[in-house]
């Protein structure tokens, strides 16, 4: 069986590494005569390597977790898979389609939930989701029924469905974001910290929907999260990223074996995370 996602030696950096001969900075320095062009020092605007030669595969129907501290490259990785960024090196395939060569074939198979619930805030969930559904080619009547069904399943009251999004709490908005992603019945769902900012009950409802999606639709799910318990409960395998690199990748139970027991206590996933990344957890988006 072919993989749902193949990420092979993917590299992505932002910013400029140096003032090359064809850059404006090079000629500006040369024209000032402060130093010769060949001796011009590196541009002070530093290059940030967001994803550093990352490779892994995700199997169809798998829930694959990506853990990492802020700035570790999780969100960049998701943007690369979702065709919103172009890799500088390596390649990514989604169900056999290359994200750079066949972006539209990939886009038909995926959907994404980001940590920020981004909507037209004056529009209602129904209006926002109808817009999203039509972009994926769904008809109006079919979409309206499904929108009500998914939103009520996620715990939204019917009257909220027709009120402007700006009147809703962040947690409710995040549920609408999840509903938007589910509407197109994606074969691959990319969840970028979907439960950040949700109360415990909402968090559980979202987690139940994720499980349901896998069980009923056999969807493949790539999930980034800061919630270790959530990662452990939902994910079949977890990759831990730090400074753009994958520093560990295995099933949660095996990852725990990477750290020896401390004071007679079995290590948790959080212990493993802290040991491997060497940084403290925070809740902001990467």
């Amino acid at each position: 069986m072919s993989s749902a996602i193949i990420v092979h030696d993917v590299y992505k950096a932002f910013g400029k590494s140096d003032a090359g001969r064809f850059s404006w900075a090079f000629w500006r320095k040369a024209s000032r005569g402060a130093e010769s062009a060949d001796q011009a020092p590196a541009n002070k605007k530093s290059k940030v390597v967001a994803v550093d030669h990352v490779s892994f595969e995700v199997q169809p129907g798998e829930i694959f977790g990506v853990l990492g501290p802020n700035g570790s490259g999780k969100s960049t990785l998701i943007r690369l898979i979702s065709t919103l960024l172009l890799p500088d090196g390596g390649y990514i395939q989604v169900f056999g389609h290359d994200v750079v060569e066949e972006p539209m074939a990939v886009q038909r198979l995926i959907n994404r939930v980001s940590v920020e619930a981004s909507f037209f805030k004056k529009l209602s969930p129904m209006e926002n989701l109808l817009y999203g559904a039509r972009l994926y080619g769904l008809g109006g009547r079919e979409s309206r029924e499904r929108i009500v069904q998914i939103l009520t399943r996620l715990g939204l009251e019917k009257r909220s469905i027709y009120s402007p999004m700006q009147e809703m709490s962040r947690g409710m908005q995040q549920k609408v974001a999840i509903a938007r992603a589910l509407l197109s019945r994606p074969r691959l769902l990319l969840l970028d910290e979907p439960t950040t900012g949700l109360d415990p009950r909402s968090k559980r409802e979202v987690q139940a929907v994720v499980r349901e999606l896998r069980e009923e639709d056999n969807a493949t799910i790539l999930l980034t999260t800061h919630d270790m318990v959530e990662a452990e409960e939902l994910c079949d395998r977890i990759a831990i990223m730090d400074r753009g690199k994958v520093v560990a990748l295995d099933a949660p139970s095996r990852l725990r074996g990477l750290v020896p027991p401390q004071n007679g206590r079995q290590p948790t996933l959080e212990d493993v995370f802290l040991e491997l990344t060497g940084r403290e957890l925070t809740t902001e988006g990467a």
Partner: protein
Amino acid sequence: MSVVTHQLRATYAFVERNANLVKRYWSWEVVWLVYSIANALSISYIGLGMEQLSGADANVDGSRLALYLIIGALVWHFLSVIFYWITELISIERWEGTIEYTLMAPIHRVTHMAGQTLFAVMYSMLFNVIILMVAAPLFDIDLSGANLFGGALMLLAGSLSFIGISITASTLPLLFPERGTQMTHVIIALMLLVSGVYYPIDVLPGLLQRLAVLSPATYVLQGVRAALLEGSATRDLWPFMWPALLMGLAAIPAGLKIFGLAERYAKRTGKLHRNG
């Protein structure tokens, strides 16, 4: 579901979304409508004012001048509203944070532009009809000898090239998240200057007259004025229509190509995600 059905539904997605936004921001639309009416009227009153200021000896036909100016105001309003709806397609979505969701949807960019353009043309047309309904009784506008069909045809022909220019201009907010929207104002301001919106281009200095030849609005305005003021037959509008159509046929594919390159650049450098 066929590809055509999918793309048609996606086109409608933009029309419906924009209509919903207009509905939700209805109070702002009322403000904008009042502003547009006041703007068109104040420009047109210059015509009547000129008759009075010049005195009887000057033999200025104030009503004709008012009609000349109101045609300029309406045509410019029509074209500039199309321009702003298209150029703001990126900035609005970046402001709301939805840009990544729209750009990762499985739709062709031409579908995206078609939906935005379709709404822009309908919206602009509606506004112009309302402004005309208010202005007509105030200026006692007599269009009995006018070729209204020819004028409308000229307007639609001209809107094609404006769509192309607007698509190109919409790359500015994509490439320059902080100041890109403001940069688009320069384009529209220069076109307003050289296209003869409120005066014949003959009064411009030589350099600006040469630039006027490159502006599709020049031909649209001359064609619409010929149709409405002179009552020229539709076939006689061809000298104004073909340059506007030709510019449209060149500008739309060029705009789409440029937008495609800008989108690729934005995806390479990570500019889609930035708020500004």
